[in-house]
């Protein structure tokens, strides 16, 4: 054990722990708590029953009262352990509660009602996962519809963006044509026009193209990004021109050079951009909020936002839906966090 502590606290340098080392590890521990804690709390809560969600103060693990089905009662009855009074030590089922007294029955005599004080009994609980929070999403809400909308938008928009941006990046990286500088300047210009400052005209252009309130209206307007062009072009510049020349000698057309040589060789950059694009699209909120109005077309984010208004009391479904919405992102993160980190660092964000 001492060895384990030694191992954990050892700095990579040498010698004893300085107070700064203690501070470092305290900070990191606090970081884990602050960053993961809320998410863990959310996930835990999403497995709780409505009754447990209302409980104050809340408990970490999802508990549910243990119940029993007794003859003569239509609903399952919650079980209690009696802690004081006549029946002390026995397990009883509560039929109903009136004021400060509780009407209970013994399990072996279900028709004989006994009245005991509320303080004399303790609920028998066990950890129980309220899966109905999740199953309700599918039965009561159109969760699959929103999930499909989000997925469709994310996948199609990402694919279009990768193709369109990589073509442009290829042109800007591998050809010396007159006007290249002008095009580069244009790309930088677009960098200065984020979607947020052209919402009104974007809405109108999209409307005129007949794409308003359709998934395409979300997909197409953001399909070309300057960030994507910069990222891919930077990478393509590192591919030696000699390889392209070799392909030209091999009678490959320019299109073939693009998609059989340059595109496969840019795979690492494409992967980074794909992950970024998936994240952007999956989490996108403002533009879908403007472009989509029928709830049939809502993405998960929109659905989540609109339901939090409607279902203020229905935290159970809302929490479950939140968990399902962040799940794909969490999975992507778990498997690809290295790529994401380097990708984000290299683009400087959107």
């Amino acid at each position, binding site marked *: 054990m001492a060895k384990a502590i030694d191992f954990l606290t*050892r*700095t*990579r340098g040498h010698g004893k722990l300085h107070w700064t080392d203690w501070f470092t590890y305290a*900070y*990191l521990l606090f*970081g884990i708590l602050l*960053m*993961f804690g809320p998410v863990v*709390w959310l996930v835990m809560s999403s497995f709780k029953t409505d009754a447990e969600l209302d*409980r104050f*103060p*809340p408990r970490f693990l999802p508990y549910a009262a243990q119940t029993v089905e007794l003859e003569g009662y239509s609903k399952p009855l919650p079980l209690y352990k009696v802690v004081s009074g006549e029946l002390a030590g026995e397990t009883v089922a509560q039929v109903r509660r009136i004021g400060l007294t509780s009407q209970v029955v013994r399990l072996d005599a279900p028709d004989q009602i006994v009245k005991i004080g509320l303080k004399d009994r303790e609920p028998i609980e066990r950890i129980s996962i309220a899966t109905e929070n999740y199953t309700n999403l599918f039965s009561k809400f159109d969760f699959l519809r929103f999930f499909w909308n989000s997925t469709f938008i994310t996948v199609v928009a990402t694919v279009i963006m990768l193709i369109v941006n990589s*073509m*442009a990046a290829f*042109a800007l990286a591998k*050809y010396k*044509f007159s006007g*290249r500088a002008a095009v580069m300047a244009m*790309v*930088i*210009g*677009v960098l*200065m026009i*984020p979607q*947020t*400052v052209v*919402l*009104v*005209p974007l*809405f*109108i*252009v999209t409307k005129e193209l007949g794409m308003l309130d359709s998934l395409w209206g979300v997909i*197409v*307007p*953001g399909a070309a990004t300057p960030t994507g062009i910069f990222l891919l072009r930077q990478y393509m510049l590192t591919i030696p021109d000699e390889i392209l020349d070799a392909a030209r000698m091999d009678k490959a*057309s*320019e*299109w073939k050079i693009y998609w059989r040589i340059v595109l496969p060789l840019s795979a690492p950059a494409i992967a980074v951009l794909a992950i970024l694009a998936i*994240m952007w699209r999956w*989490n996108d*909120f*403002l533009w879908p909020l*403007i472009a989509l109005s029928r709830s049939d077309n809502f993405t998960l*984010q929109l659905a989540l*936002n609109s339901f939090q208004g409607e279902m203020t009391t229905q*935290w159970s479904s809302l929490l479950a839906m*939140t968990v399902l*919405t*962040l799940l794909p*992102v*969490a999975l*992507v*993160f778990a498997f690809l*966090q*290295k790529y994401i*980190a380097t990708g*984000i*660092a290299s683009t*400087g*964000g959107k």
Partner: protein
Amino acid sequence: MIRIVSFFMDLIDIPMRHAQRYLRGHSIAWVFLFPNLVLFGLFAFLPILLNVAYAFTGTDNIMLWDRTYVAGENFAALTACSNYLDANSCELDLFWRSVHNTLLFIVLQVGIMVGVSLVTALILNRRIRARGFFRSVFFFPVLLSPVVVALIWKWILQRNGLMNAGLEQLGLERVVWMLDRNWAFAWSVFLSVWAHMGFYTLILLAGLQAIPRDVYDAATMDAAKPFRTFYRITLPLLMPTMLVVMVLALIKGVQTFDEVYAFTGGGPGSATTLIIQYIYETGFAGAPRLFGLASAASIILALVLAALTFLQLKFTRRNADG
């Protein structure tokens, strides 16, 4: 799947070969650029022009030809104030309230964000175990969608939530956070820092790691104390990265909408209504839809953002050069 894509791509090859024959040399580049340029034109450059057109026309008609030219009326309305520091004295008080909110928001958010990110980056840059793991711990919330972030914290801050349980544990009174103007604003700043700090930490960490080891070794040989090393070596060498981070944070901060809107809806009252929300509600959510006013506000915002982006490019380029 790959076959299908292959087939499709080979199909494109046929017209491309013809294009190649007509476009001598490097002019073929234009063919590759075409789809992108069309998208940029339709969804970036055309909108910027339209924005101007809408900002100078009035009525709630959506089609440009149905609108009447009103010259600078929209801008005049936006800027009609007897005292710019007092939103109540303005014709469009909500606009000015959102401007004030946004200014306060970015001052707090960027300040705290840069501070916290710097400390975190410095800590992650120490000789610690499992640095990759800790880096991703702080980075994780960056990936969460704004709506999810808002709901996570809303759940914690609700009346019967974890935060109030903690307060009670400490013997304090419960607070209904979301109904208090100041608390709602403060938590909005907090949540936005929580969600985005990992991103800036990452950039600062990269900046720290780019400082050559031997500079520190030299400082050690010069018997510099740790704090002195920090002020005289780390901080100056990190300054370019800090500038980039600050400007980036400003650019994004000004455009904050999603998480705060999902968190507070702009309330209570208009306590957390930021500028983008104002534009959104003026142009799309309210009735009548005041496209002209929204466009005019957008143009003001665009000018601010263009200036900031210009700064960002300048700093980034200087970084790359030096």
